[in-house]
Structure formats: C-alpha cells, structure tokens
C-alpha cells in the first residue's frame, strides 16, 4: 500500500520486479540506474551473495516528478529469484503497489516461469491481495538471444502460459540492451498511479 503524505505532498509507490532466478530483474534495475541518473537521488542498494546473486532485494528510488501537485516517489525493488528464498520474497512483497513479472524467454525456462508466477499468486494471497487485481505488467525478457541462435519461446506461447487469464499488458524486452525496459517501467508506474488514485476517490 502506497503512503501518501498530505503535508509535504509526497506519494510513495512501491513497485516490485518479480520472476524466477536469473530472468533479469536486477539487470532491469541496473539499466534504469544507468540511464536515468538525473531522476535518481541515491545509489542503488543491492543485497547480494558473493556470487552476485540477489540475497534479499535490490532497491532503487526513482523520482517521477509531479502529478497534480504531488511528488511521486517510485521505489523499485527486486526479489531474490532462487527457489529457496521464498520467505524473503514474501517480505519484499509487503505493501506492494505494482508488479512487473519478468519471465525468461529462453525455451528451457518455460516451467520455471510458470512455477514462479503461481508462487507470486500464493504469496499475494497471504497478504490478502489478488494477482487479478493488483497492477501487473508482463515482461518477456532476453529476446536478444534469438540473434545468437539460442532457442527462445514464441510470444504466443509465453502469452498462453502466463497471461491467458491475467490479460495484462506485456512487453518483449532485453534488459541487457535496454530494449523496452523503459516502456515496461512507464507502463507499471502509470497503472500503479491510476490504481492509487482510484483508491483515493
């Protein structure tokens, strides 16, 4: 749940990048951190293992400027993707306003994407949130690998596996080159802000 400060006119919006291990969540935030330096007041915080895997979360605060006189402060988080870290994934989801589900488009990751999305559904339920109601955007990441001859899933398959019931906006993306990273971010910010505005009315 976002926090709205009527005194200083600040709205804080929490957005979480969720998905299976190594799908590219941290890479999304690193790209945003490099590309939008002017809108980022502080350093990216990464709690990771020696092997460079996310241990708890990455955190990146992002200034959106003003909407209707309110300063919009976006707080971007990633979850740790490894299966064994579900307890910490749950903690990061607390009070979430919007979610980007990053799926790994590599053919061999098909099952992992589905399992991760199912677990997201369960984790949200434990906070009495619904995956069908919360602002959500799908990102099918690593599409650049096609050029390198690595088999990736067709969008139609990813859509059928992950988005046939949710029917949320989706983007093909390449977090490593930055393709559609900003488009994904803009979409989830606008969905989240609209949803917060609705709750206020």
């Amino acid at each position, binding site marked *: *749940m*976002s*926090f*709205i*400060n*009527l*005194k*200083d006119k600040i709205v*804080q919006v*929490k957005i979480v990048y969720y998905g299976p291990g190594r799908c590219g969540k941290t890479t999304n935030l690193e790209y945003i951190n490099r590309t939008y330096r002017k809108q980022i*007041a*502080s*350093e990216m*915080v990464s*709690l990771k293992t020696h092997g460079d895997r996310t241990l*708890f*979360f990455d*955190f990146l*605060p992002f200034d959106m400027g003003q909407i209707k006189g309110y300063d919009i*402060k976006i*707080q971007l*988080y990633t979850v740790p993707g490894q299966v064994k870290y579900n*307890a*910490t994934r749950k*903690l*990061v989801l*607390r*009070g*979430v306003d919007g979610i980007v589900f990053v799926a790994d488009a590599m053919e061999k990751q098909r099952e992992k994407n589905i399992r991760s999305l199912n677990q997201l559904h369960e984790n949200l339920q434990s906070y009495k949130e619904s995956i069908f109601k919360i602002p959500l955007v799908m990102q099918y990441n690593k599409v650049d690998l096609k050029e390198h001859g690595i088999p990736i899933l067709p969008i139609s398959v990813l859509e059928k596996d992950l988005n046939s019931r949710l029917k949320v906006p989706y983007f093909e993306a390449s977090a490593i080159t930055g393709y559609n990273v900003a488009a994904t971010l803009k979409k989830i910010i606008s969905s989240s802000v609209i949803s917060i505005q609705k709750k*206020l009315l």
Partner: protein
Amino acid sequence: MNYGIVSQEQLEQIDRILAEKLIKLGVDCVIIIDMAGNIITAKDNGESKYDVYSFAALAAGNFATVDAMAKLVGEQEFSLLFHKGQESNIHFSKIDDELLLISMFGRDISLGFLRLNVVDVIEKIRKVWDRK
C-alpha cells in the same frame, strides 16, 4: 487503522512530538516508516544527512527479517532491536503492526534513557492516530 493517508494536522502533531521528545534530547535523527518501507515522516537535528529512502527500505527489511526469525524460534517478537556502533547507534521500536519508529543517536545518550523516551513518544503518537 487506515494508515495510508495521514492528515497534515496529524503529521504536524507527530513531527512536534518527535522534535520535542527526541531531537531536543540529542537524538540525531528519527524516522517513522511502515513495514512496506515507506517513510511516514523523518526529523533530524539539521546536521545529519542520511539517505532516508534507502535507509527506510533496509530498515523495513531488517525488522521483517528479525521478526520472522523470532517466529521461527517460537517467540512472539524480539522486543529490543538495537545496533551499536562506534559513533552512532540505531534503535528500532514497533508503534503497531504497521509502523516502526527508528532513532539514530550518538555516544552522549544512553540506551536506557532513549528507551524511556521512546516509550513515551510512542504512547503519544498512538493517541494522535486514534483520533481519526
């Protein structure tokens, strides 16, 4: 409790309590955050410049982790959460299920003295919330 929106008046009251009861005593910085890592309000003595947004995200994570560990070993909660450094210390205190009060203070204040005042501050803040 609908903590998601606080009125300007309530925030001003809370800021006043924090200033009078903690900052005046020599606490460097006080932050109230929610368990999602949002900042409700932050007050400091004008000298310390912390990156409060990153701090809030880490503090919420830290508190949630310790809380989960407590449950794993069969405790309701660990009531004292305190980090001691050479120059500065951090003290965490739960206001209610959603809110945390975090105080940062130096060598000139004792933990016992701080805790007494924090208890008093929390009681006053709860009254401000309840008035909604």
